[in-house]
């Protein structure tokens, strides 16, 4: 599904990612953990296609396609979805209208008809109920005046409506209380399946109590310094990130 | 509860009363023999000034063109100021201390003058000079002393009085005088062009980072004198300079006019930082006397990647009319304006800046903090203009006003002009409020007196600007804020 090789990314001429290697296959869940400033969000934004993040070297292949040549909307239509850490507020743009436009854009790309307004509303209301969102949010502008938790739920709503193939969840657990965390995790688990892959980006282990990763990677100073199974997360929780100080690279030197 | 509020109000009122009575400590006069021309303004006076300075013809011609143009002009009335009519024939346009003999060194400067500057905290004698700061001291119409000139010369830095520069570097004067503020620019700049008597000249050669701060100290002493000085600073490619300016005047009942012109030129990759602490006599608490400060300050970022930064702390003057500006001509050039303006009693200030974006990728920042007390009026007036050629340019402006009394005014008049340009961005924000009751209460609850609390909040309010001042100045500026606003708080 996704193959990242020796990825170097810079923003404003500052190198943030310094040789990332990562392979995510169909149906897998990968957790990427790391301290603040390690480059976790940069990885999300780079995969989603944010222009300010420029790839200096290395490659990202998604379903065999070179992502670096694709506009963010094409990546989205091909099935990449990034749930952002800080979803932006867009006053004046109605949330429902936005979601329907996005869904129709994705459908059109797949050669499908536009979804009927009525069917769409039925679908959205059902999904909203599942993740405990008030219908009031349909009438509001995109994320405007939403609390931190509401914004995160809105991201998960989009995830379940757009049904991408690869979901990257960037610190989706931050700012959620325990009940919200459960609901959001259930949403993600419902989404997951043999055809759907997930990258969980998180600072803390607690999200992994609800969403079981197949692999855990530790990102530090722009490099993946250690990879392992879900037990690695527990070890990290116990011993802290300092435990891994001194490790520079776990695998595959990049030049 | 109500009682408590009344008490608090009462305390505030008392405090503000004290502020109004705070002393202007630079208000002494110096007794010294002066060489003075008679009151009034005509072509002969212009010629006389030029003659006294033994100026080349081109300069006299320039002065005369300015004077002739000035006669066709009217005093501007657009500022938010009430100005008593100025009788330009009642002003003395030239007054210089009589020289007892030809000066060979600084130590031969008149003792009275040395003394004056000592009392102002600006020692001029060789052994007591401020370390790390070169000073040009201007007394009424002339520069009386310039320190460290010789030392700077070794690096090729020219730092001298304007008159000396006219004598020794006429080619630079000819090239740059009026190149940023043309003699026709505005009523007061034109008047200055006709009658300016002295000022400061700085030239920083290519690639030189000026090793010490350069400064001018302006002192008005003679009654009825108008001070008209010019400052010209040229920073050649890749050079950099920090320039400081201070000013004071005796307490007199009549209003006195100060109409200066400052021109800055920054060539490719050059940086000029210009800081002012303006403490002209503000008049008494009834609004009698004080300096009319009508100053034109403008810099041009002529070269690519150049930067001009203005910082000002305006506490003095009866009336301040002043808009230090930047013309951002070079690509990637940067303009900054940081200002604190304090008005109290019957002071009036209409001050701000202009940022004229001409070059590509130019950036400007405006941070203005106005504090009004007593019966004063304090206005921010600023222009940000993005022309068609200034693609991908940015401006951010933040103008905040703090009100310390219910008889004063705080006004904000920004002008934003974006013409045929859809790649640039201008953002302006402004707030006006009284000093925060909650903040005061919080600080008092932690044991601070009302006065200390006000002082602390005002200082916090100005922090962003004060941080821009060089160390020596920041301390003085803080003290000045205390004096201007905090009465007995020391």
């Amino acid at each position, binding site marked *: 599904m996704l193959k990242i090789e020796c990825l170097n990314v810079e923003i404003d001429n500052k190198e943030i990612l310094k040789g990332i290697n990562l392979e995510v296959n169909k149906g897998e869940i990968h957790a990427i953990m790391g301290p603040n400033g390690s480059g976790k969000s940069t990885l999300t934004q780079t995969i*989603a296609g*944010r222009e300010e993040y420029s790839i200096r070297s290395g490659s990202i292949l998604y379903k065999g396609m070179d992502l670096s040549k694709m*506009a*963010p*909307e094409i*990546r*989205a*239509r091909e099935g990449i*979805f990034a749930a*952002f850490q800080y979803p*932006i507020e*867009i*006053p*004046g*743009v*109605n949330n429902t*209208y*936005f979601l329907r*436009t*996005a*869904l129709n*854009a*994705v459908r059109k*790309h797949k050669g499908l008809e536009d979804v009927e307004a009525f069917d769409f509303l039925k679908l959205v209301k059902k999904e909203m109920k599942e993740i405990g969102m008030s219908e009031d949010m349909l009438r509001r*502008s995109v994320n405007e005046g939403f609390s931190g938790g509401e914004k995160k739920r809105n991201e998960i709503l*989009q995830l379940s409506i757009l049904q991408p193939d690869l979901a990257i969840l960037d610190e989706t657990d931050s700012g959620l209380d325990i009940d919200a965390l459960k609901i959001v995790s259930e949403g993600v688990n419902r989404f997951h399946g043999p055809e759907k892959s997930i990258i969980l980006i998180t600072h803390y282990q607690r999200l992994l109590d609800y969403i079981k990763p197949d692999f855990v990677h530790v990102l530090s100073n722009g490099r993946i310094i250690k990879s392992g199974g879900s037990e690695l997360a527990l070890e990290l929780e116990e011993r802290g990130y300092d435990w891994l100080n001194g490790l520079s690279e776990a695998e595959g030197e990049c030049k | 509860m109500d009682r408590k509020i009344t008490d608090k109000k009462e305390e505030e009122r008392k405090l503000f009363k004290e502020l109004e009575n705070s002393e202007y400590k630079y208000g002494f006069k110096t007794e010294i023999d002066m060489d003075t021309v008679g009151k009034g303004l005509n072509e002969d006076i212009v010629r006389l000034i030029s003659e006294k300075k033994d100026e080349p013809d081109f300069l006299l011609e320039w002065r005369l063109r300015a004077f002739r143009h000035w006669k066709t002009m009217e005093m501007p009335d*657009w500022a*938010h100021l009430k100005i008593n009519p100025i009788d330009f024939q009642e002003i003395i346009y030239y007054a210089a201390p009589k020289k007892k003999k030809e000066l060979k060194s600084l130590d031969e400067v008149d003792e009275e003058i040395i003394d004056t500057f000592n009392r102002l905290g600006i020692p001029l004698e060789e052994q007591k000079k401020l370390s790390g700061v070169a000073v040009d001291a201007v007394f009424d119409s002339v520069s009386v002393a310039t320190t460290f000139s010789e030392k700077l010369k070794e690096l090729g830095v020219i730092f001298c009085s304007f008159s000396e520069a006219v004598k020794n570097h006429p080619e630079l004067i000819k090239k740059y005088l009026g190149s940023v503020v043309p003699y026709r620019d505005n009523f007061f700049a034109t008047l200055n062009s006709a009658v300016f008597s002295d000022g400061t000249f700085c030239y920083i050669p290519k690639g030189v980072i000026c090793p010490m701060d350069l400064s001018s100290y302006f002192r008005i002493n003679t009654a009825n004198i108008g001070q008209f000085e010019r400052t010209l600073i040229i920073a050649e490619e890749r050079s950099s300079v920090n320039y400081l300016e201070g000013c004071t005047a005796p307490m007199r009942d009549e209003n006195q006019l100060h109409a200066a012109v400052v021109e800055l030129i920054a060539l490719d990759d050059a940086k000029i930082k210009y800081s002012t602490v303006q403490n002209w006599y503000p008049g008494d608490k009834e609004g009698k006397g004080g300096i009319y400060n009508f100053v034109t300050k403008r810099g041009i970022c002529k070269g690519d990647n150049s930067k001009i930064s203005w910082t000002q702390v305006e506490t003095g003057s009866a009336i301040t009319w002043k808009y230090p500006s930047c013309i951002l001509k070079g690509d990637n050039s940067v303009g900054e304006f940081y200002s604190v303006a304090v008005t109290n009693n019957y002071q009036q200030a209409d001050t701000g800046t202009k940022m004229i974006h001409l070059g590509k990728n130019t950036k400007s920042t405006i941070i203005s903090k106005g504090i009004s007390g007593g019966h004063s009026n304090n206005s921010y007036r600023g222009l940000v203009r993005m022309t068609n050629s200034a693609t991908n340019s940015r401006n951010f402006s933040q103008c905040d*006003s703090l*009100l*310390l*009394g*219910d*008889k*004063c*005014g*705080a*006004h*904000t*008049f*920004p*002008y*934003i*002009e*974006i*013409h*045929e340009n*859809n*790649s*640039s*961005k*201008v*953002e*302006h*924000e*402004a*707030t*006006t*409020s*009284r000093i925060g009751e909650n903040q005061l209460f919080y600080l008092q609850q932690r044991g601070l007196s009302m006065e200390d609390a006000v002082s602390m909040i005002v200082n916090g309010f100005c922090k962003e600007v004060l941080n821009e001042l060089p160390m020596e100045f920041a301390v003085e500026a803080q003290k000045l804020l205390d004096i201007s606003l905090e009465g007995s708080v020391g």
Partner: protein
Amino acid sequence: MNRFVPADNLIAPLGGGTLRKWKNGGKWAENLRKNGKSEFIKTGIPSTRIEEWKYTDLTPLTKMDFSFNPDKTDPIDNALIEKLLPPKLSECSLVFVNGKFSEHFSFVHPTKGLFIDNVRNVIKSGRDDVFECIGKAGTKPDALTNLNRAYFNDGAVIRIGKDIDPGFPVHLIFLAVNAKSSEMFHPGNLIIAEEGSKFSLIEEYTGDPDSVYFTNTITEIHIKDRASVSHYKIQTENHSSFHVGSLNVIQGKDTKFFSNTATFGGALTRNNISASMNGPGSESNIEGLYFLKGAQHTDNHTEIFHNFPSCKSTENFNGVLDGESRAVFDGKIFVGEGSVQTDSTQSSRSLLLSGSASVDSKPALEIYADDVKCSHSASVGQLDTDSLYYLRSRGIGHNEAMKILTSGFLKEILEKFENKDVSGKIENLLNSEIKV
């Protein structure tokens, strides 16, 4: 350039005298016109040397050959009017065709406590008492007000009785048809909302595409204690017309005023909005949006006066500019001495779609009281790149995302329009105008 430019051509159509068509009309109307005329002749129209007109040049008006035909004899085909008339947004509407009240197209729903008529009728019937307060709202009359007064002869007069809430808005439609010879229209509307009443007024200005005309209108609203008035203005005049519209509002205590302006039309448009809160506990909310293209010029000029304590004001203007269009925002918040506990916010934002469009913005705060909370912000620039990226990351194409954000920028203001018929109409206009 002088501060004023003579504009005899604007006053010439009156000939040597003033309009004296209605002999029954009181002396006051005659005086109003006479005074307006003589004051206008004294000054002419303001040039850009006058601070209030710094960015809007009216001098093209002085070069036109204007006519004024209040009682034009050539009848306009009703079918044509029918075709051009915009859909009515209320069961109660007054239609003015080329500045003149049209009985045929108007419909007044008789309602207890609500007095609605046109100026001519009111003058004819000698009800001069209604006009007692005329000219009391707004600041000192400017040249354009004087010009309007010189021609004062038609418009709407509405008085909402004490504690009356009609429950429906009144829709005023000003339609220009077949105005081929540079006609001028000077409507004057007077609204009096008595104590405790509630009222909503929609003014709509539009015309056929071929007319060339100058609309110079004044709406004066008196909001008495505890009353609440919402005002909507939709302007879709054609691109060769001039439009100067003044909205002068005076508010008593504990009143509410909502102004909602949407400007799409006009070669040159000037919206003057002046609200004076002359009693404590009042609020003024001024919202505006505009969409300009081609060589259009729109100037929103607002003044909000906090003359008493405990008043609140909000002001928001958002505009989108395409082509070589030009927008001006000049908004002043004034807080008088003693007007403590003032709360005021103002924002003006413009979006430049084209590299040939220009914006001049001049938000001003003038404050003479200490216990206040005032702020303003102004921005001119482009669409937010973060928002654009967010939409694209959800699969929405670049152009579509631009379109959504551009209309969202204006809908932000539109959301604040309480009348959904009005906002629906404007939303349709937006959707048809915004093409990226």
